[in-house]
């Protein structure tokens, strides 16, 4: 039974890796659309610093975790990311979501309010 569980784990993780390889291949060859990834859509398509910082911190956190994985002692299991990485990543994601909420929800509401108060 333990052998079966191990083979199940290996097969499922291999499937996940194959999916990842397929998606990365499509990303690199243009099979997955990336247009507008770093642009705001409201009120017009402009360069978005909030998206850029999220991309930078996402890639940095992913790289840091992969570095931890490669440097881990043998048979020590899955490494845990440091709290500092989680805090920085959380702050970055909150900033991104906050900017998106401001542009999509609060700013249009304020503009409608200002427009309604005009004589």
């Amino acid at each position, binding site marked *: 039974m333990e052998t*079966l569980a191990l083979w199940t784990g290996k097969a499922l993780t291999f499937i996940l890796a194959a999916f990842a390889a397929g998606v990365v291949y499509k990303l690199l060859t243009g099979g997955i659309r990336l247009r507008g990834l770093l642009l705001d859509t409201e009120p*017009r398509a402009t360069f978005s610093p909030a998206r850029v910082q999220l991309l930078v911190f*996402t890639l940095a956190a992913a790289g840091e975790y992969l570095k931890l994985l490669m440097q881990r002692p043998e048979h020590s299991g899955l490494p845990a990311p440091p709290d500092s990485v989680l805090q920085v990543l959380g702050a970055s994601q909150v900033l991104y979501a906050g900017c998106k*909420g401001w542009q999509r929800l609060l700013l249009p509401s304020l503009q409608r309010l200002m427009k309604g108060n005009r004589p």
Partner: protein
Amino acid sequence: MTPLAFLQAAETAPSQSASSTLGLAFGIALLVIVCAAAAAVLWNIFTGKIDLTFLLCGDDDRASMGRFQFLIFTFVIAFSYFYVVASDGKLPAIPTEVLTLLGISASTYAVGKGIDQSGGSAPPDNPPEDKK
């Protein structure tokens, strides 16, 4: 061992063995089915029958940063798990910090989706430049 205990052991041993064999066969069959289904999906992705063009796009057909970062973290953790299983030869425990990492990522995606669904647009007297 008393005779009674010996008889009880003789009676239960075959049933335990049969149950174990049945469980093993069921597990192998399930594994084969899952692998076949995954292979079919992968084949359709590579042949283009499953279109991934808009995998990262939101409702406005532009790529979404929330989806992109969620994809990256999912693949990083999945790859790490694969690497640990392959190198250690056993299924590892998943630390709480890893679950927190995935939770932060998924929460941002969910919040972004919620904002997109409930979001308003700019007033009509302030049109985008490209529509002028």
